[in-house]
């Protein structure tokens, strides 16, 4: 059961988005996140929604699957929504003792909650459409300029690759240890949170010892296969920036420019609209 956990939530599919260069995708997502803070009105959100909609439909990842990513942060979204609704000062629409709802409050609440939703949906698209290994390659490549400053980029990438490889192995190991202890009467399921947390300690100790043993074996095996760091190493799948990546970059640039235009020219439009709706 413990093996079912999928980390990074990759959704295998053959779409144009999946095939894009991971470096481009990482940069594009950063620009997308920035754009969320550039636009300041619902007109801008229409643009964001349009872009996100096209992105999702091109990626062929089912919407249901993407929306599932919102579940764990639903509480944060609700909290943001309520906080904004009750704490913004302005034209009062409804009041009960110290609780008051203002016109600006509703506007802000909806605006902020939507921003969070867009943020999560957009960034989860990165991991959904990019294999963890590709993501690692992309990060390594993007960090290359910092190598001269002494950042061990190859080592970082290798660590991430190995971590990804050994997550299932360590989960299996945990499962084994838990079962071995349950067979001897350990109880992980009843009692207070504190008690249950305490019951986990005897799992962690052998798990750590096991992890070190694995690391030792692996280091020996890597050395036997001539591993000597990033120096003079070739790559089976070197990243290549292709024409479709250039096209995607162009689209992203247009999108970001539109977001800035929206900020410059359409700011304040919402306030007018809101007034018209309420009055």
């Amino acid at each position, binding site marked *: 059961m413990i093996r079912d956990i999928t980390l990074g939530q990759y959704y295998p599919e053959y779409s144009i988005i999946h095939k894009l260069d991971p470096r481009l995708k990482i940069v594009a997502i950063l620009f997308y996140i920035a754009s969320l803070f550039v636009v300041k009105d619902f007109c801008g959100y229409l643009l964001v929604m349009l872009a996100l909609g096209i992105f999702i439909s091109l990626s062929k990842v089912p919407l249901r699957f993407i929306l599932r990513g919102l579940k764990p942060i639903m509480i944060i979204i609700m909290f943001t929504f309520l906080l904004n609704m009750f704490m913004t000062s302005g034209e009062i629409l409804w009041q009960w003792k110290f609780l008051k709802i203002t016109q600006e409050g509703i506007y802000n609440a909806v605006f902020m909650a939507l921003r969070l939703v867009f943020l999560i949906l957009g960034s989860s698209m990165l991991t959904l459409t990019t294999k*963890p*290994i590709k993501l690692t390659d992309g990060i390594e490549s993007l960090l290359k300029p910092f190598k001269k400053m002494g950042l061990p980029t190859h080592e970082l990438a290798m660590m991430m*690759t*190995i971590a*990804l*490889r050994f997550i*299932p*192995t360590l989960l*299996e190991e945990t499962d084994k240890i838990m079962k071995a202890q349950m067979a001897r009467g350990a109880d992980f399921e009843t009692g207070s949170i504190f008690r249950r947390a305490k019951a986990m300690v005897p799992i962690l100790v052998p798990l750590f010892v096991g992890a070190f*043993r*694995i690391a030792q*074996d*692996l280091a*020996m*095996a*890597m*050395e*036997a*296969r*001539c*591993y*000597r760091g990033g120096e*003079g*190493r*070739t*790559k*089976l*799948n*070197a990243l290549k920036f292709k024409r479709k990546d250039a096209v995607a970059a162009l689209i992203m640039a247009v999108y970001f420019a539109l977001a800035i235009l929206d900020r410059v020219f359409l700011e304040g439009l919402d306030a007018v609209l809101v007034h018209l709706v309420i009055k």
Partner: protein
Amino acid sequence: MIRIENLVYTYRHGEDTDVIPALCGVSLSVEKGSFTSVIGRNGSGKSTLAKSINALVLPTEGRVFVEGFDTQDESALWEVRQRVGMVFQNPDNQLVSAVVEDDVAFGPENLGVDPDEIRKRIRFALDSVDMYEHRKMAPHLLSGGQKQRIAIAGVIAMRPDVIIFDEPTAMLDPGGRQEVLDIMHSLNEEGITVVLITHFMEETVKSDRIIIMDNGRIALEGTPVEVFSHPAEIEALGLKLPFAVEVAAGLRRNGIDVPEDILDTEELTQYILQRAARSEPAAVH
């Protein structure tokens, strides 16, 4: 190919503890294209011997040469390791990547091989262990025997002359054990020198030479027929004769003249059936 001269290896567990000898004066040489089995009980030094052949362990005294390269010569380290591939006991702890083909590529990548050539080598290596269709899989979804085959492919992709198998079957089920054993022999037929470290006598019967280690020394050495003709010594070293050899010896004591070169269960069964058919047809149902 491999020449070991008076190899001594000692280690200690800490600064103040006594020196523990793992190998005390081992000399041997391995012929190109041969299949050599090294067998011994736990702590006999067989694994240390294996690791000293590809410079994972450096001799305290004595020398190890691989095709003329001294393992103590640091400038020849990668030459030695590229020529001597090594497959370890635990299939889980020697795979580096989360995708099979990336793992096979790991060795050639380290050697700086061109990507197109790596692709060819992946094809060749995975074909020779019959795992090419699993190239996109994650290793943790494969069986133990399959994982070990991937590890072997990872070594083959480096084009070694020798492959050392350090108890490759110890953690596998009988099916996986047979898979790995078959691959070792087929690689040997293709010209790769094989050194098998094991503690299963059964796995050694088809090798060219058996070396029995005990307490850091070579206790017994020779072809399987020669070695198995010393049953008392083998027992004294804490090892067991292969089942077929034991049965054959029993048959010989009872007046059935089993040929000396019958060492494995299948050959013995064949022989018994043939003989039974010839002499007493009624006894076979």
